[in-house]
């Protein structure tokens, strides 16, 4: 981490410090830096080319002395610079004091973190500069200014086969053919049919029998519904004629039918 404490400060030639040392000036421009990290990086770069070798302690002292100078000259120094200064002052004292294993995180780790951040910011700053220094299209390098352009002319191949052609004609003909409407017979059982059917069946039925037993077996639902209604009416008619007896225990209970003794036979 390069926390060597005895590097000679005076060897370090820093433009920012020159500004700071220039007591003739009434203001120190901290707007030249984009925040405390930027200032720290500038200070760090004056130490060594390789940020991995910088002395954090030395860096901290440079920052604090810079801020101290700047504060004396410019009272409204931005708050984040002062926050950083306070934090670095703490870091400095922690680094100088005998090691206390109970302090978590250790000052060494804090220092390492600061160093890592500076390395990362520096890497991006250098990458940005390298990016900008590239030969850029539209600035250094030019594409053809007046390209004729390439064109794709689309032609359509219509897709239709012989079968589609003649079947289309067939369908026109079919459309134009006169249409005969046939109304389909609905499956119904008329009252007359029901009367006939029920009368015929009554002879074989001696006990009370449910009305549904008189319906045709295996009929379609539509026919069955019609037969039920017709057969019911037929039963009522037969009851009126005195040929059958009807019985129902409650509403909607099965309707029971029985031939009247000696009536129809």
């Amino acid at each position, binding site marked *: 981490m390069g926390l060597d404490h005895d590097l000679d400060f005076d060897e370090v030639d820093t433009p920012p410090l020159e500004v700071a040392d220039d007591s003739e000036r009434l203001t120190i421009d901290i707007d030249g830096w984009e925040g405390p990290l930027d200032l720290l990086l500038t200070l760090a770069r004056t130490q060594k080319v390789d940020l991995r070798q910088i002395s954090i302690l030395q860096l901290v002292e440079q920052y604090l002395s810079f801020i101290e100078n700047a504060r004396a000259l410019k009272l409204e120094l931005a708050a984040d610079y002062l926050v950083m200064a306070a934090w670095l002052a703490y870091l400095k004292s922690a680094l100088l004091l005998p090691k206390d294993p109970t302090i978590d995180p250790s000052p060494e780790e804090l220092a390492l973190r600061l160093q890592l951040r500076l390395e990362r910011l520096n890497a991006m700053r250098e990458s940005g500069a390298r990016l900008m220094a590239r030969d850029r299209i539209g600035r250094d390098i*030019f*594409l*053809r*200014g*007046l390209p*004729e*352009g*390439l*064109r*794709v*002319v*689309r*032609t*359509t*191949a*219509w*897709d*239709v*086969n*012989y079968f*589609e*052609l*003649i*079947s*289309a*004609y*067939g*369908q*026109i*003909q*079919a*459309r*134009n*053919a*006169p*249409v*005969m409407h046939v109304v389909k017979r609905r499956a119904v059982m008329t009252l007359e049919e029901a009367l006939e059917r029920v009368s015929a069946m009554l002879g074989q039925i001696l006990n009370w029998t449910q009305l549904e037993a008189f319906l045709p077996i295996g009929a379609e639902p539509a026919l069955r519904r019609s037969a039920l209604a017709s057969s019911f009416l037929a039963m009522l008619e037969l009851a009126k004629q005195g040929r059958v007896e009807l019985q129902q225990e409650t509403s909607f209970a099965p309707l029971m039918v029985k031939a009247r003794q000696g009536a129809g036979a």
Partner: protein
Amino acid sequence: MIEHDPSVRAVEATLFASDSPMTMEQIRAYVGEDVDVADALSKLEQQYQGRGIELVKRGKTWHFQTAADLAHLLRREREESRKLSRAAVETLAIIAYHEPVSRAEIEAIRGVQISKGTLDVLMEAGWVRPAGRREVPGRPLVYATTVEFLTHFGLATRRDLPGIADLKAAGLLDPVDLALEGLQGLSAVESGDLPEGGDVELEIGDESA
């Protein structure tokens, strides 16, 4: 690698990058006073002779352009297959069976109006052509099929088109919904129940008058 004349290179790059033809003065403003622009241009002109691009002088301005004999490369044709619309297929079929036939007649047979685009598509495809006018009031244009039409559908003559009786036998006179079912289930022919009356003749009136 050949060592190229710096003046020629400078003029070459300047003309290449410019978005409009340039006069010698305009070129000079870029390449500097100590370049002999006229000399560089004449060298360039020579160097590009016979290449895919050429240096061209028009009036007082210079520019690069694609060699004239390669212009055809810059226009690429791409054929796209597209399904002919139902209206177009029906219209084509009617023209084929009834030609020469007027637009009004086509509409009378189809039972619906046809849009202008439908006939245009068929003519663009090269299958249909205008075939004179009918000498009735209004002198409507009549349409007929072309040789390309016959070629496309593999027909020797229009007489090869199946007659109404053939269509009926093939189940092609089924009403549309049945025919569609038939295409799906291939059962239209067996299903029997075809409506009678396939022998109804088309009444084509002249409705254009």
